[in-house]
C-alpha cells in the first residue's frame, strides 16, 4: 500500500469515526406518542400548582401572541442568528404536545429535545430548566395538558444555513449546557435557597439579565450583569445595577409582586409581563426570589449609598432647575412630563420622580426612548401604571433633545452617545413589538383565574 493510500484510508476512518461520534452525541430517540390524557386524569391540586409554576416560568410570555390563544405559540423571537418562533404547548394532538407522554415533556425541559428526538433551539431556556425538579415538571405537565387544545401549526424558523440544521444545537449543548448548576447552600436560609432554585431554574431571570457570548450562551462569568430582551435593555441586577437607589429585598418584593416600588418606579416592557405573572403566584415564592436577588447584588458600596441618600433628599425637596431651562428638552419636559412626574401623586398613577429612574442612569438610552415613544398602557381591571406615548407628537430629534436633557438633569452619568439613532431604532422596533407581542395589557388576563385549577 502506498503512503498516500494509507493516509487516505486513515482519513476516511477518522471521518467515519467522527460521524459516528457526532451521531452518538446528536442523536436522540423519539419517545412513542400516546393518546392525549384526559383532563380528569390529573389531580386538581397538582394542576393548580402547575398554574403557579407556569406563571413563575413566564411560559405565556413567549408561547402566546397578542390576541392569540393561550400557549398556542407563534411568537417571533428575534435573535442575532435569525428569528425563531415559539411552539404550541397546548395539548392539541396534532400541532401541540397532546401526544407527549410525561417523560417526553421532562426530557424537553431537562435537555431541550422534543418528543421526536429533535434538538430544540436554546431560545427555549432549558439551560435554566435543567434545574427544575421532577415534581415541578410533573405539575407543569399536568397544568399544560389540562389547557384548551388549540390547533396551531408551528411557524418555520428563519435561520441561515447551517444554523437551520438542528444537529448544530447538539454541538452548542456540548459547549454550554450544564446540568445541575443549582445546589442548595446549607449555610443559607431555606428562603434564600428557594429563591436560588426559582431564579436559576424555572424563572430563568438570567436569560434576559445576563449578557450572552457570540454563540448566544449566557456568560457564566458575568451573571446578571445586564442583557437584552425584545429590544429593551434588561438592566444589570447584580452589584453593577444602575438603579439610583440600590435594591433591597423589600423593594424587590414590592416591585415584583405589585409592579412598582416608590423608590424605583414601575415595571414596563417585557418586565411588565413578568410582574403580571408574579402577581398570581404564592407571595412566599416572590419573597424568596427577592431575598436571593438581594443577596446577588449584595450590600451597596459606600459611594452608591451616599448617592442614593442625595437622590432621595432631592426627590423630597426638589431644587428648581436652572441650567438649560430654556432648551427644547427642558420645555418639552415642563409641558409633557412634569405634570405627572413631579405631581407627587403616589405610584402607580403618578409618575416616578425621574431622579429615581433606572432608565435615565442606565448605560444606554434604549429603555428611556421606548417608554417616551410608547408610554405605558394600563392593565384592564388592575391598579396599574399609565403613561401616554409620544410617538405621534415628537420627532426623533425632539425625543433625543428630551432624553439628553433628562440624562443631564436627573442622573450623575455622562451624556449618552447616538441618542437620536437609538430613538429612530426604538421607533422602528417598538412598532413591530407592539404588533406581535402579547403585550403588558394582556399579561394578567388570567387574574380572574387565580386559585382555579
Amino acid at each position: 500500500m502506498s503512503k498516500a493510500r494509507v493516509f487516505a484510508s486513515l482519513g476516511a476512518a477518522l471521518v467515519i469515526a467522527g460521524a459516528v461520534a457526532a451521531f452518538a452525541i446528536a442523536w436522540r430517540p423519539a419517545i412513542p406518542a400516546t393518546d392525549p390524557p384526559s383532563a380528569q386524569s390529573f389531580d386538581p391540586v397538582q394542576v393548580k400548582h402547575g398554574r403557579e409554576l407556569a406563571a413563575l416560568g413566564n411560559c405565556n410570555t413567549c408561547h402566546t401572541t397578542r390576541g392569540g390563544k393561550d400557549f398556542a405559540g407563534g411568537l417571533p423571537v428575534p435573535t442575532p442568528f435569525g428569528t425563531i418562533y415559539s411552539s404550541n404547548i397546548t395539548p392539541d394532538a396534532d400541532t401541540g404536545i397532546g401526544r407527549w407522554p410525561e417523560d417526553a415533556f421532562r426530557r424537553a425541559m431537562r435537555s431541550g429535545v422534543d418528543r421526536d428526538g429533535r434538538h430544540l433551539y436554546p431560545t427555549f431556556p432549558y439551560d435554566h430548566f435543567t434545574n427544575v425538579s421532577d415534581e415541578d415538571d410533573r405539575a407543569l405537565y399536568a397544568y399544560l395538558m389540562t389547557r384548551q387544545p388549540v390547533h396551531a401549526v408551528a411557524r418555520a424558523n428563519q435561520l441561515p444555513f447551517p444554523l437551520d440544521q438542528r444537529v448544530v444545537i447538539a454541538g452548542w449543548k456540548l459547549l454550554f449546557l450544564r446540568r445541575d448548576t443549582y445546589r442548595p447552600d446549607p449555610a443559607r436560609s431555606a428562603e434564600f435557597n428557594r429563591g436560588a432554585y426559582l431564579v436559576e431554574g424555572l424563572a430563568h431571570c438570567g436569560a434576559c439579565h445576563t449578557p450572552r457570548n457570540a454563540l448566544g450562551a449566557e456568560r457564566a462569568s458575568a451573571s446578571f450583569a445586564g442583557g437584552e430582551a425584545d429590544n429593551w435593555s434588561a438592566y444589570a441586577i447584580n452589584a453593577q445595577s444602575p438603579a439610583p437607589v440600590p435594591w433591597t429585598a423589600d423593594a424587590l418584593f414590592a416591585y415584583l409582586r405589585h409592579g412598582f416600588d416608590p423608590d424605583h418606579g414601575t415595571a414596563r416592557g417585557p418586565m411588565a409581563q413578568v410582574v403580571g405573572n408574579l402577581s398570581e403566584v404564592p407571595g412566599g415564592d416572590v419573597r424568596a426570589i427577592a431575598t436571593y436577588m438581594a443577596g446577588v447584588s449584595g450590600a451597596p458600596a459606600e459611594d452608591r449609598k451616599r448617592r442614593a441618600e442625595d437622590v432621595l433628599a432631592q426627590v423630597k425637596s426638589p431644587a428648581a432647575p436652572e441650567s438649560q431651562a430654556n432648551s427644547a428638552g427642558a420645555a418639552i419636559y415642563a409641558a409633557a412630563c412634569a405634570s405627572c412626574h413631579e405631581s407627587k401623586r403616589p405610584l402607580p398613577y403618578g409618575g416616578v420622580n425621574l431622579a429615581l429612574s433606572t432608565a435615565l442612569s442606565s448605560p444606554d438610552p434604549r429603555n428611556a426612548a421606548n417608554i417616551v415613544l410608547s408610554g405605558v398602557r394600563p392593565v384592564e381591571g388592575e391598579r396599574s401604571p399609565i403613561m401616554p406615548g409620544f410617538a405621534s407628537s415628537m420627532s426623533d430629534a425632539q425625543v433625543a433633545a428630551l432624553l439628553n436633557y433628562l440624562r443631564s438633569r436627573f442622573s450623575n452619568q455622562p451624556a449618552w452617545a447616538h441618542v437620536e439613532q437609538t430613538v429612530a431604532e426604538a421607533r422602528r422596533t417598538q412598532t413591530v413589538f407592539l404588533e406581535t407581542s402579547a403585550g403588558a395589557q394582556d399579561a394578567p388576563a388570567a387574574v380572574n383565574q387565580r386559585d382555579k385549577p
Partner: protein
Amino acid sequence: MTTVKVNGRDHQVDAEPDTPLLYVLRDDLGLNAAKFGCGLGQCGSCTVIVDGNAVLSCVTPLLLLEGKQVTTLEGLGTIETPAPVQRAFIEEQAAQCGYCIAGMMMRTQALLQRNAKPTDDEIRAELAPHLCRCGTHMRILRAVHRAAHLMQTADASTDQRSAQ
C-alpha cells in the same frame, strides 16, 4: 409670538413654547371642542389631530408643533354641514354628557384616515386611551362603523371641506 397652524390657518399666539396646545386652542383661539379632562394625557378628552395622528393636546407643548398641521373638531365640519364622523356620532346618539366625545371623534377620524374599514377589535384597541364615564361605549362603537361607511360614500361637499 409663536405661529401655529390650526384647521388650515396660521395663527399668531403670544405664548411660551412650553404652553400645552390645549390651552392655546381654548384660551387663545377660542376653539373649545377639545376638552380639559385630566391634564395628564390619561383620559383622551383633549385629543386633536396633528399631521394625521391623534395627539393628546394637554401634554403637547407648542414648540413641538413647528411646521405641523393641527386639526380640531371645528376643522372637520360645521353644525350645518357636519363631517361624516360628526354625522355618524349624531345619528347614533353616541354622546350622553358629551365631554369625551370630541376626543373620541378626533381619534376616530385619524383611525379612519389610516384604516378605512376597521374591525370591532381594532376600534376598541384604538379608542382604549379614551375614558367615557356615561357608558355609551356601544353607541360609540356603532358610530365609528357608521362613520367608516359614511366616509366611503361621502358626498362631494364633505370631500371638499376636509380637503381644505
